[in-house]
């Protein structure tokens, strides 16, 4: 298997090629990543469904239930992100346990990745992996974030439809009013509605959405044990037509350019002469000097 065979395998939807390509994108040097993405960029057209929410509200369970239902409407692939350990860099990925049975039955491709300590709820290469899954002929890609906090909102830049999963008892109406994750949902799901306080939770979220003029954004209460109200959720996903082309493109472009700039400047900072004069100067002035000198180099080399 060299990379050309790999690309052919992706376009034919071969699971082993897709899996290996994802490993290369995650782990390898930028050269093979660029090669893979450049040759598959224009292939495929999928709806990316983002699933986000705090830890333990049932994101993986919901995916395990909804993925087989969605597969009646087209090919489904799943990408789940789990957190890496800040101490060892390792991770334990457990989302597969909640969905394995239904996946094997329907032959759905599912991949779990570690976030490799990247902030925002996704991993650095989630965009590239979504692109590979898209090129493999998927109609729906379900993207699960790590159990997110209030500020893990990167998902809204990748997903076409962002589903925020919540559960009863997570807080009062002030929590629902706060910014961050409560603003990014295209649909709000309250799981575990058999629990006490579920109607209060739905009411609080509904009221907050009405305050910010999002009357059309639905709040759906579901129960993953009896598969209650899943049909409403499914209808909403299937009938969703908005595509997020621009945000997706901008996010990736920004990431690539920033990475390039970061590498350039950090090389400069690491290799600078730290004489006593430099250390006496305040860091703001030094930073200005570095940026000015780099700008001159950039002006000369590329934009002329």
């Amino acid at each position, binding site marked *: 298997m060299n990379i050309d065979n790999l690309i052919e395998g992706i376009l034919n939807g071969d699971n082993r090629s897709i899996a290996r390509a994802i490993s290369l994108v995650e782990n390898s040097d930028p050269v093979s990543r660029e090669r893979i993405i450049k040759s598959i960029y224009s292939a495929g057209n999928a709806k990316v469904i983002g699933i986000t929410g705090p830890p333990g509200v049932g994101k993986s369970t919901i995916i395990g239930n909804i993925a087989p239902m969605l597969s009646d409407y087209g090919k489904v692939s799943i990408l789940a992100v789990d957190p890496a350990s800040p101490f060892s860099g390792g991770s334990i990925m457990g989302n597969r346990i909640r969905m394995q049975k239904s996946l094997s039955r329907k032959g759905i491709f599912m991949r779990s990745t570690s976030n490799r*300590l990247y902030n925002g709820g996704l991993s650095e290469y989630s965009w590239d992996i979504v692109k590979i899954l898209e090129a493999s002929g998927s109609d729906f890609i379900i993207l699960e974030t790590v159990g997110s906090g209030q500020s893990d909102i990167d998902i809204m830049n990748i997903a076409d439809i962002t589903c925020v999963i919540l559960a009863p008892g997570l807080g009062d109406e002030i929590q629902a009013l706060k910014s961050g994750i409560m603003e990014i949902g295209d649909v709000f799901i309250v799981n575990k509605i058999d629990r006490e306080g579920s109607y209060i939770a739905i009411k609080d979220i509904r009221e907050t959405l009405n305050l910010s003029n999002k009357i059309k954004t639905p709040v759906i209460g579901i129960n993953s044990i009896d598969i209650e109200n899943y049909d409403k959720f499914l209808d909403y996903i299937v009938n969703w037509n908005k595509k997020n082309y621009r945000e997706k493109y901008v996010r990736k472009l920004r990431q690539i350019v920033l990475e390039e700039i970061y590498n350039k400047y950090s090389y400069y900072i690491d290799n600078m002469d730290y004489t006593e004069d430099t250390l006496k100067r305040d860091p703001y002035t030094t930073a200005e000097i570095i940026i000015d000198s780099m700008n001159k180099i950039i002006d000369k080399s590329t934009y002329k």
Partner: protein
Amino acid sequence: MENGKNRKYTEAPIKVLLAKPAIDGHDRGIFVLARAFRDAGMDVIYAGLLPTPEEVVDTAINEDVDVIALSLLNGAHLTAFKNVIDIMNKKGVHDIAVVGGGIIPDEDKPALEKMGITGNFGPGTPLKIIIDHIKKRAREIRKLRENEYR
């Protein structure tokens, strides 16, 4: 090597699938291993209780793991481990290492080694020995794979 900043394929975290491919609910040992492997900087996937051998191989292919670590404490290792190897051979998967563990009598070990299942550690084995063995097998697999893409 800085955590989370790996760029070379051979140096990226080792990916391990932990599985108990038969009717066996004793998962305390496998939890201890999962934690130990995570603390050793590996990406660990646990297949959950009662997966079929087909599901184990399916998971291993989808996740593109380097090592499948099989554990059984009920004495069915010669049948269950062999099922996993057979399905892998049928699907043409030759670039994933398989290691074993559990209650495995010494006289069964040669048969398992012959199938390509190494390690076969019993209770009381120091975690360091298991981790070193997994790292060794993963390095072999990574070498094998790296040459495919040059």
